[in-house]
């Protein structure tokens, strides 16, 4: 609708009026997830974080909204746009990075791996069930001694008649202990990397939960232990036998993080802004002091800039022009910026900023994980560096 443009009222929560760049459907999806997070996550997540648990019914509620694998098409999946998926990640992470991680791993890692590299039978069997939340997936690439260098993985798959025998250990696996299936990447005898669907209950397979985390506590993190696990050939991905397989999945998940980080940052900013207007020091609200205003202005700048980057990458993803290096730049900049915003928010809240009464230190601690998972900040820096110079500085 063409009308004479007139300046709209400034919204402190959307300073640059980025909302105007979204269409009605994107806004409707965003608003629904935002409401869900406000009603179902925010009131409870402090307690989940403290207890180090995620209630099982949350998985069903997220499935009820249709968020698992929402941006994939076919097999009864919604086929939403990348921007709608990104907005969803942002709203979920405004609740907690752990909740966003649950959805990211299910949709972008486990479902995407099957959707992109799986056989027709694997897709038919797993994708609809995973969308409905009847089956939860996890993604096993990282190992105790292979993180940024996944090619050095020690997990092996040995051919035995019609089956494969898997041995090895995977670590830092989100959703591991609650998963019905694990996408496991292993080296075969020819030295190639193959992907397998390892099902819960297969003899020799276990997924003990990793405890004592001080970050992402409202998220299940596990080890995957494989001791002579017999996996049939029909559970191997037929379409891929190189690292390109797992890396393509990580690129999907990173895209969601580019958005998600801005959600966590926004939650901290809003908490700090509200607090600054109410907290009285020397007879006036701290919002009236220059040092606080500088903090708030820098935070708002970072969030608006990061959200514009996320939206730009989303539009590129939707028209098929997004490059992995561009996702690296987005993840690198947005997560670093978001951590800075959360830390600054912490200083505005003073002592209150370290409690679970406010979202700030929870987000801040969570982002410490986000900074290094799905490609560390350093690795993404080197990806961008290589793209700029043509020189590989990884090794």
């Amino acid at each position: 609708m063409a009308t004479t443009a007139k300046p709209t009222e400034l919204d402190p929560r959307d300073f640059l009026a980025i909302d105007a760049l979204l269409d009605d459907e994107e806004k409707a999806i965003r608003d629904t997830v935002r409401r869900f997070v406000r009603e179902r996550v925010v009131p409870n997540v402090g307690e989940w974080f403290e207890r180090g648990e995620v209630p099982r019914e949350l998985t069903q509620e997220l499935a009820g909204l249709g968020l698992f694998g929402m941006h994939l098409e076919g097999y009864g999946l919604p086929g939403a746009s990348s921007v709608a998926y990104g907005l969803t990640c942002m709203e979920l992470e405004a609740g907690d990075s752990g909740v966003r991680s649950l959805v990211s791993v299910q949709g972008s890692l486990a479902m995407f791996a099957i959707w992109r590299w799986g056989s027709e039978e694997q897709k038919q069997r797993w994708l609809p069930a995973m969308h409905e939340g009847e089956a939860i997936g996890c993604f096993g690439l990282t190992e105790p001694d292979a993180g940024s260098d996944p090619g050095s993985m020690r997990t092996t798959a040995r051919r035995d008649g019609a089956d494969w025998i898997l041995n090895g250990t995977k670590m830092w696996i989100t959703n591991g202990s609650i998963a019905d299936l694990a996408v496991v990447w292993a080296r075969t005898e020819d030295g190639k990397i193959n992907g397998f669907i390892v099902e819960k209950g297969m003899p020799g397979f276990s997924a003990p939960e990793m405890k004592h985390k001080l970050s992402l506590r409202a998220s299940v993190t596990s080890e995957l232990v494989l001791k002579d696990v017999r996996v049939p050939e029909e559970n191997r991905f037929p379409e891929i036998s190189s690292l390109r397989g797992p890396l393509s999945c990580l690129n999907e998940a990173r895209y969601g993080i580019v958005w998600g980080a801005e959600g966590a940052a926004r939650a901290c900013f809003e908490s700090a802004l509200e607090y600054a207007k109410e907290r009285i020091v020397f007879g006036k609200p701290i919002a009236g002091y220059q040092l606080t205003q500088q903090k708030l202005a820098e935070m708002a700048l970072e969030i608006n800039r990061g959200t514009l980057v996320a939206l730009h990458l989303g539009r590129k993803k939707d028209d098929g022009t997004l490059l992995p290096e561009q996702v690296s730049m987005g993840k690198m900049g947005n997560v670093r910026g978001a951590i800075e915003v959360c830390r600054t928010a912490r200083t505005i809240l003073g002592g209150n900023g370290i409690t679970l009464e406010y979202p700030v230190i929870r987000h801040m601690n969570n982002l410490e994980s986000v900074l290094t998972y799905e490609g560390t900040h350093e690795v993404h820096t080197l990806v961008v560096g290589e793209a700029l110079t043509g020189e590989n500085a990884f090794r």
Partner: protein
Amino acid sequence: MKIAVCVKQVPEGTSLKLDPGTKRLDRSGEGALNHFDANAVEEALRLKESAGDAEVVVVSVGPAGAADALRKALAMGADRALLVSDDAVAGSDLVATSRVLAAALEREGADLVLFGQQASDSDGAVLWAAVADRLRRPLVSQAAELSVADGSLRAKRQTEFGYDVIQAALPAIVAVSDAINEPRYPSLKGIMGAKKKPQETLTLGDLGVDVGQVGEAGSKTEVYEFSLPPSRGDSRKIEDDGKAAEQIVEFLAEKRLV
């Protein structure tokens, strides 16, 4: 069975603005589905799910933008939407609005018409009564439970002292209480599918309603003036550090209120 649900688009947010020129509510900003109506939509969807074979049509009278509120109801699962939008309707009071709505409902001929208990902007809570009177249909308000079987409905009506259990023959009108259910979140597929569902917009002419019977001309009430409520003056905020209750009692005692 055909179930019609009457819904209203209300201004989003909690602070309502009045336009001093027209003395009407400023509806220029973002709108939302009246949250009381979400209970009525939810109840209609539940009745449809238990009946198996039913159609849920959402009906609204309002500006063109009210289509957004209807789309939210479609995203929740309603089958189609009907919007009566006509510039002449602007400024209608409850009496005039009920005339338009009754005409739209007459055209639909639904077995059951559901309303939310009130609109969160005007808080009238009588439109359903006016519509029921015009259509000469039985009416149950404040329904906290509702079921339909064999051509009649059974409702538990919330009262000050307990519940009335009321049975009424269909076609009938029910205004549900906000305690009747918890509205579902629209699913992603619901949101994405909403714009493909049938959505019809009608004018007064389509319904055969005379322009002189609506708007200010058709209204029985007239707004002479309005003003903001007086400010609360000297107020004090107490942060609860475990002693808030004591402080409040002290304050009330000081004012000789307890």
